[in-house]
């Protein structure tokens, strides 16, 4: 019984936050006419039922059809196959997401390289120096990926010196 109530509480909280976000989206959207409160509640109801009944089963069956257990971005794209505009918008969004992720990864790599060069003796200090000076001791040839173990061994060598 207690487990059931916990599940119910979780669902209720999820519903509430979903309603909050739908109302915020409705208010942010500048439609030609103002929305009445009943329409917003109707939209909340619609969105929740859509997720519950259509979206969950669709995504699951698409992933299952592709012989996967994790749901992919391609499954989400399939959901908007009927509407051409929606499909193109989703494609754009996914492309932008990928770009952002690549940028973030590149920045992480660069930060790691700089940390190794600038490390005096402190091991866990997070020096946030954004200096763009390239490493002087290192040769210009930059290998693609440096495993963490290699970098740590190099830093140990330097500290010994």
């Amino acid at each position, binding site marked *: 019984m207690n487990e059931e109530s916990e599940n119910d509480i979780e669902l209720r909280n999820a519903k509430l936050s979903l309603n909050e976000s739908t109302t915020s*989206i409705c208010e942010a959207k500048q439609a030609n006419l103002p*929305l009445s409160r009943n329409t917003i509640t109707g939209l909340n109801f619609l969105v929740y039922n*859509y997720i519950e009944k259509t979206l969950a089963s669709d995504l699951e069956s698409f992933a299952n059809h592709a012989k996967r257990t994790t749901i992919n971005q391609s499954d989400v794209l399939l959901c908007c196959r009927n509407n051409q505009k929606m499909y193109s918008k989703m494609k754009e969004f996914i492309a932008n*997401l990928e770009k952002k992720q690549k940028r973030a990864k590149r920045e992480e790599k660069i930060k790691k390289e700089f940390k190794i060069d600038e490390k005096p003796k402190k091991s866990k200090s997070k020096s946030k120096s954004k200096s763009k000076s390239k490493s002087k001791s290192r040769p210009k040839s930059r290998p693609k990926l440096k495993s963490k173990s290699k970098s740590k061994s190099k830093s140990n060598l330097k500290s010994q010196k």
Partner: protein
Amino acid sequence: MEETFNPSTLSTILRKNFKNEKTKISKDTLECVAEFLRLFVGEAIDRASAKAQIENSENIEPEHLEKIIPQLLLDF
């Protein structure tokens, strides 16, 4: 800042309604689902406002929403 759905809430609701317990969903896909639903809501509002304008009403009422729901669900 654009208003979107919270990915964690979406994951809880989706996970409750999966038939197979093993199905998972990644964070990136949750962001896509949030965008998808945001577009869904936007589309619903646009279609309802068009109906309301045709009928010369001041606000967008639930009746207008009711009228656009069948076609909206078919398109999605």
